């Protein structure tokens, strides 16, 4: 892809203002192209996650069994989406705590929650969100 540096090399001395303007334009175009290519995949992933989440929430609303809630086919489908679903789960948790902990343990293989905090939904949510801020770079976020 042609960069501002390439253009500069070709045209020789390049007025600074025009150089920066062209450079920024090229960077912005590159960003838009990359996001256009991945946006479609992200959009589909988001739609699938939302669909599964809504089905899971509706069909487990009155359940108290953590096992039944987390073995629900829609929840298992979310786990099956793998690490790519983590940003969506984290966004959900930041807005409204829910029983995402099975999914997070299953997908990441991690468990930052100490035994003393088991069952404390709000505290577990906070702990996982902190974990995510420290580890999301490992998942390309």
């Amino acid at each position, binding site marked *: 892809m042609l960069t501002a540096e390439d253009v500069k090399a070709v045209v020789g001395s390049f007025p600074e203002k025009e150089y920066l303007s062209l450079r920024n334009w090229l960077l912005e175009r590159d960003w838009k192209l990359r996001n256009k290519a991945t946006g479609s995949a992200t959009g589909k992933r988001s739609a699938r996650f939302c669909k599964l989440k809504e089905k899971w929430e509706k069909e*487990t*609303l*009155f*359940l*108290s*069994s*953590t*096992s039944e*809630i*987390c073995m629900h086919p829609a929840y298992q489908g979310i786990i099956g989406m793998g690490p790519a679903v983590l940003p969506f789960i984290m966004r959900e948790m930041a807005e409204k*705590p*829910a*029983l995402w*902990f*099975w999914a997070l*343990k*299953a997908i990441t293989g991690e468990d930052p*929650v100490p*035994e003393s905090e*088991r*069952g*404390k*939904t*709000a505290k*577990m949510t906070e702990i996982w969100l902190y974990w995510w801020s420290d580890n999301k770079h490992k998942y390309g976020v």
Partner: protein
Amino acid sequence: MMIRRIIEAAFPDLRISGYRVTSPDTVGYNCVAWAAGDTSRWWWPDSLETSYWPDDVQRSETLEAFVRAFETLSYTTCDAPEYEEGFERIAIYVNANGKPTHAVRQLPSGYWSSKLGQSYDIEHDLEGVSGSQYGSVGVIMKRLRKLQD
């Protein structure tokens, strides 16, 4: 209200026996925690150990384990569900396979209080939440009511 329609669709007997929604929905605690008097944690013996379960009680989804869990709170099994002055009662529901599904606690009025999973608390008749969702009452337990300070 929409929530009443949703509740009555899941528990049709409540429409007949009557009930009252008594709290907003929350995932901070579940029915077992509510019956145990604990609104700070979600109680369940799940195999991934994400929920709270009393120490020294087998982490098993059996009626025996649930009875043991409430025994740690000084409850003992009994036969009668009727309100008895000076005593607190809880009931554990089981499905057709005998697996625990739900727990409720009795109110001084003689009615019972349930936390409906991830949603609301309701006040109801003991049999009001029996049915396809929770099954039927498997065991009733009681303990001496703690004196208020």
